[in-house]
């Protein structure tokens, strides 16, 4: 018996539709990487009254109101300038900025990434060099490096803030368990053991989000690899990431895993922060940028910070350290219609007046030398960095190529915590990964 019924979903037009969908789907992916058409101006305009409007872009949506307040002060002193602040979601910002800087409606003064992540923008000649216009002499070398083009050594931005990483702790939980901020490794381990016995998670870590793990490594083990001293040695080629001290520092994270939440690679950073804010965890390695998050989440919690003491085996002379880097830099777009006014604005950002407002209103440690944070904890972070600071090495020096040092260590530490690789293998992967683009200076 043969029959030819109507075949559902089988007509030629339907087949053609499927192919058309295939073509369109792929097309949309391809389209996603297409920069916008190029234009020649920033979005800043000139009103009929001769006033200049400068557009400032930032990735800190949460700080938009504070930026508006800060720039109100600038507008008062510069009546011919109006500043329009636009903030975008941080995770979308790189994409938006790349399009904005290439197109006709971009910012006059964009917030730009620092160190290695600045280089693509510099290479695209999207920013004006600021040498001879802004004076960063007397600023911390590590901070100034964040603003420079690697190839030409020119300054392309003005650093906004210094970020530091350290251990936050819940003073109430510490008091309740008869503990104080540890000053030796033995005290640190004893505190962890006592908290664990008391049913409190000692160290909240969100290892599901790989970007957090290099920070965790810096906080827990920077003295173990030698902190600032190791930076010079690895940059000159004298040492590599397979050095026993570096491997030992990675091992420290593995050894402390028992004090972290159970199934730590499944714990998101937001969960780790909630554990700490809900007073179910006593410590959390974090950045200065996290302070306001904790303060807002639980205003009644008394927070303290400390530098984790050197783990056994640390190189001789190695001391507890606070790692730091510069972040949130502002630059002048090469397409700005008002380069002089935009440059004047970023020049003002090097002033103590601006730095103090950043500290007071945005709750960040200003990059401007001599500015004292009013928040006592921010001040402690700033002082710790000033007295015993070190660069957050993988961010400041190993993000100038792909794969970046932070990406490699983040993934490697996940593998370490999952038990699929040991510290030596993780370090070997890091070393092999950065060697594909990193050339020592010596």
């Amino acid at each position: 018996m043969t029959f030819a019924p109507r075949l559902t979903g089988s007509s030629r037009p339907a087949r053609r539709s499927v192919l058309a969908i295939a073509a369109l789907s792929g097309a949309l992916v391809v389209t996603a990487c297409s920069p916008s058409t190029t234009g020649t101006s920033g979005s800043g305009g000139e009103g009929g009254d001769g006033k200049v409007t400068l557009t400032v872009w930032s990735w800190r949506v949460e700080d938009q109101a504070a930026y508006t307040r800060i720039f109100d002060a600038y507008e008062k002193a510069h009546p011919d300038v109006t500043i329009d602040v636009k903030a975008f979601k941080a995770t979308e910002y790189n994409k938006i900025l790349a399009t904005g800087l290439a197109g006709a409606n971009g910012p006059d003064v964009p917030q730009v990434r620092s160190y290695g992540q600045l280089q693509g923008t510099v290479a695209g000649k999207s920013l004006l060099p600021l040498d001879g216009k802004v004076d960063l002499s007397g600023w911390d070398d590590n901070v100034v490096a964040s603003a420079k083009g690697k190839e030409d050594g020119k300054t392309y931005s003005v650093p906004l803030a210094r970020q530091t990483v350290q251990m936050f702790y819940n003073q109430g939980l510490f008091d309740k368990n008869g503990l104080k901020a540890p000053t030796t490794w033995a005290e640190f381990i004893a505190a962890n053991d006592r908290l664990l016995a008391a049913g409190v998670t000692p160290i909240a870590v969100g290892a599901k989000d790989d970007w957090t793990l290099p920070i965790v490594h810096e906080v827990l083990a920077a003295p173990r690899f030698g902190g600032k001293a190791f930076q010079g040695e690895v940059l000159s080629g004298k040492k590599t990431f397979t050095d026993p001290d570096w491997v030992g520092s990675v091992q420290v994270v593995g050894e402390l895993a028992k004090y972290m939440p159970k199934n730590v690679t499944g714990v998101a950073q937001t969960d780790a922060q909630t554990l700490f804010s809900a007073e179910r965890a006593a410590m959390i390695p974090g950045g200065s940028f996290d302070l306001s998050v904790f303060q807002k989440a639980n205003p009644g919690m008394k927070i303290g910070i400390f530098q984790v003491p050197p783990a056994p085996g640390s190189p001789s002379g190695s001391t507890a350290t606070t790692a730091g880097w510069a972040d949130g830099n502002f630059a002048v777009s090469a397409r700005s219609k008002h380069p002089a006014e935009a440059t004047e604005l970023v020049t003002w950002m090097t002033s103590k007046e601006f730095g103090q407002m950043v500290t007071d209103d945005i709750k960040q440690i200003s990059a401007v030398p001599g500015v004292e944070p009013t928040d006592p904890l921010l001040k402690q972070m700033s002082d710790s960095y000033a007295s015993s600071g070190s660069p957050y090495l993988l961010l400041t020096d190993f993000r100038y190529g792909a794969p970046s040092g932070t990406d490699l260590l983040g993934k490697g530490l996940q593998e370490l915590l999952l038990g699929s690789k040991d510290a030596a293998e993780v370090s070997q992967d890091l070393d092999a990964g950065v060697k594909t683009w990193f050339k020592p200076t010596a």
Partner: protein
Amino acid sequence: MRRRTGLVFVAPALALFAVFVLYPMVTAFSYAFFQWQGTTRGAFAGLENFATLFTKAPFTTDLPRAVLHNVLFFVGTLLIQNTIGLTIAYLLHSRPRTRRMLQTLYAMPYLVSPIVIGYLWTLLLSPTFGPVNTLLTGLGLESWALPWLGDPKTALWVVILVSVWQWIGFPVLLYGAALGGVPEELTEAARVDGASNRQAFSRITLPLLVPAVGTVSVLTFIFAMEAFALPYAFGGSTGNPAGATDFVSLLFYRTAFDSGAADAIGSSSALATLLFLLIFGGAYVATAVLRRHERRITA
């Protein structure tokens, strides 16, 4: 005259399509063949950007892994979605009174953005605060309370299963429509000839559904190859944990927008072009095979 009138109606949409899709697409293709310094185009690079994808880190490790995950995602989704989707559609087909309502219920999750679905399931499966593990522990199944999204052995399967859960309404609707198109006289004739329900389904209904299965399969292939939103919501742009949920679209995203590399546009355009060819080529081959099969059963 009729043709000209048709063109007038099509023209506005065609113009928009040309400006917002075709033009950027063609330019993006061309970007893959040039050197780039940020957003400044350099010299003609030939196939250099494509060679980078097969010879340089991190592509040498990340690209094969991402392609494998896309393929696993496709196979897993296809097998589970087709099987469950067809079963549900068949069961609903025999319940005409509640079919509409149930079809709507099954289709509801795909009205929600995959990003939202991803975050919701991330919260549900959190080993710290998530209700799934709390429930399992409460039921005495503590050994089942796994770090679902924190273990490479389970993370990809979670992405697949949640995707199936979200999109199951789609094959249910398609198969429902296809079942509605199967002439009842054929199955009735088979039953008169003594065929059981099972025989009628496997010998008559199922062969007639093959074109619909093919359509669902090709659409699933396209969907799986360009998967982005759900894996991004679950594992971020790096495919956490340890790259276990990495997909080609995520690799494209972090190459283009996260790497900060000066030549990001060149290598990411090359990757997007390859992905386009993979999707188009795969869909073309699958469609050709299905068409041949369709001709055979209608001969």
